[in-house]
Structure formats: C-alpha cells, structure tokens
C-alpha cells in the first residue's frame, strides 16, 4: 500500500490500543511496554504486544523468543499469555534492517492491520524512539486510545520526551500520562540514591497537564529478567518494581474506561 494513501484502519477485535513512547532512546520503553502488557494480563485482560521498533526490535529477547520461519509459523506468537508481533521474529538477530522510512511505515501498518490479533482488551505498542515514520503512521492510521510517555529524570531525556508529547498533541492522541523510569536506586543500606537526579517526570507531567503515573526504581533484576526472556512482573511479582507496574496497569485500565474522544465523524459527500 502506498503510505500516502493510508487510511485509518478499524481494528474490530481490539478494544484499546495503547502506545508506549518516549522521545529519547534507552529510557526503557520496551521494558515498560513488556511489563505493562504482563501486568494488564495479570489483571485478567486479554493483551497483545506489538513491537513497532523495526530497526531495533526488543520483544523477542524480552520474551525469550527468536527468529521463526514466517512461512510456517502463524503470527502473532504467544508467550506468557501475551500475543506478540515483532520484526525480530522475521529477521536474523545478527542482521540489520536497513530500510528507508516509507518501508517502515508499511511494515508497521502490516503488523497492525494484517496480523490476526483476534479479540484483545489491550494492544500495547512499543514505539521506537523519536517522532518519525513509525510513530506518525501509527498515530495517523491506528485508532490509538492513548499514549504513555516514558522518560528518565534528567533534562537530556525530558527535552526529547517533550517532543514526543508535542507530536501526540499535534495529532490529537490523548496522553494518558508520564512515567519516570530509572528514578532511584535503593541500596543495601535502605537509602534512596537518585542516580539520574529526580522529579523530572513529575515536572514534565505538570507542565503538559497530564497525570504523573509514577516513578520506577532501578533494579538490576529488571535488566536480568529482560535479557532472560521473563519480564520482572512475571518472574518476581512481589518486587517493588512489579508492584509499580501492577499499579500502572490499574491506572491504564481506569483511564481506558473513561469515555475517550470519539472518532471523527465520516463526511457525507
């Protein structure tokens, strides 16, 4: 399909589409997206997770999956109760996807529209960093319920997060709230160390007038769990980080239940 002729697609089986975004890379979007998906699942919802990061897919590693043969394997894949789709399932992890923008937009649209997601309460989309093709395609053609902005506390991350927010405002996608990731570290001495400073997420949320959804501590187990294919919400459901995610899932469910902005009416020509 020519991206210039893209149409807003309707996803009849999917109740809510939640995008997890940030301006900057490396703030933990994929970790947040994966754990949020599992936390929503733990709350009894039917959940899908779509990895829209075509160049650097992370979902396969986080769910302990690898490349599959697309000729013989039906998508989406299922693991830990979540329906999954990622570019990483189709490309050798040692290969780079070297594509221009329109091709990315096309792939993202195919993931969304051509993968038989089935009946889902929530489809969480892990967006790539920035405000480029994948983000634009999704915000223009997917019926997004809302977006969650992930940031780390320091200014260098906030400045990019602000741009992400700006993009969603521009295309009228409601911002559900801001999450501050890697907010602090609790040492063995029980003391709270604010490694990357603190309060940035709350400041950004206040500035743009959206809820601050909470701060997530640095826990080495988060990285370990991500790398071994079992996100922390599933592996250590009693850890403080997992509890924060469950709280986040509850907020997302509450937020999604609100009457959101209705889709634009059709034109009678």
């Amino acid at each position, binding site marked *: 399909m020519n991206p*210039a*002729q893209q*149409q*807003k697609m309707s996803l009849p089986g999917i109740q809510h589409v939640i995008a997890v975004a940030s301006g900057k890379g490396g703030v933990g979007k994929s970790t947040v997206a994966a754990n949020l998906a599992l936390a929503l699942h733990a709350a009894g919802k039917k959940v899908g997770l779509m990895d829209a990061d075509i160049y650097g897919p992370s979902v396969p590693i986080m769910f302990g999956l690898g490349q599959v043969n697309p000729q013989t394997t039906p998508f989406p894949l299922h693991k830990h109760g979540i329906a999954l789709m990622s570019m990483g399932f189709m490309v050798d992890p040692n290969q780079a996807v070297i594509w221009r923008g329109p091709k990315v937009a096309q792939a993202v649209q195919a993931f969304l529209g051509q993968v038989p997601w089935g009946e889902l309460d929530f489809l969480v989309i892990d967006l790539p960093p920035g405000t480029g093709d994948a983000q634009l395609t999704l*915000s*223009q*053609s*997917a019926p*997004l319920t809302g977006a969650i902005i992930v940031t780390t506390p320091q200014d260098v991350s906030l400045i990019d997060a602000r741009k992400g927010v700006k993009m969603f*405002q*521009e*295309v*009228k*996608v409601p911002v559900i709230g801001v999450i501050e990731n890697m907010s602090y570290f609790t040492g063995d001495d029980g003391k709270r160390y604010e490694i990357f400073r603190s309060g940035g997420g709350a400041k950004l949320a206040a500035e743009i007038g959206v809820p601050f959804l909470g701060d997530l501590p640095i826990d080495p187990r988060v990285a370990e769990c991500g790398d071994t294919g079992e996100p922390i919400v599933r592996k250590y459901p009693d850890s403080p980080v997992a509890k924060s995610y469950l709280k986040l899932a509850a907020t997302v469910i509450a937020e999604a239940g609100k009457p959101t*902005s209705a*889709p*634009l*009416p*059709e*034109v*009678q*020509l």
Partner: protein
Amino acid sequence: MADEAKPLALKRAGDGLTIDWSDGAKTHVAWRVLRKNCPCATCIEERAKPPDPFRVLTPQEAAAGPPEPVSMKPVGHYAYQIAWNDGHATGIYPVELLRKLATP
C-alpha cells in the same frame, strides 16, 4: 487541547463543506478555498514560490473543472484527508484548519 471544538457532522452543501461543531458553531467552507490551501508539502512549497504566469494546467487539472472532492476520510483523531477530482490526494487537513478556513 481538550476544550477545542470538534466536528460533529460534516456534509457537502452547495459548492463546499458545512460543519457542525461541538461548540455550537456551524461553518461553511468552499471546496475552492480548501483546494487552494492544501496543506501538503508540495502545495505549501508551490505557494511559497512567486506565481508563474505561464503555468500550463496538467490535462487532469484541465479536465477536472472546479475542484470537487472524490473522497474525504478521517485521519486519526485530528484531520481529514481529501482526494480531489484533479488527482491530488496528499493533503491532510487538520480540523483546526477546516475551522480556520471557514466562514461562519
């Protein structure tokens, strides 16, 4: 952002588009005005150039006559994409623009 007016109903009326807005306003904008203010990158660039008095209409433009939409589809939560009878279809009109270009 939340308190901006939203279109409730859009329909063709005469030579243009009539929109009923959530704040009670009713606006009308001619197709000619919409076509002339197409917000796509090509048209914006075209408008920025000094007018070319010797511009030749493409056969499609000449055959099309006055601008008429072939289709007008919602894009996301924020805009409408209009495909015109002259074959141009890349303009995505944000709802604010539809409001701004209209006469009440």
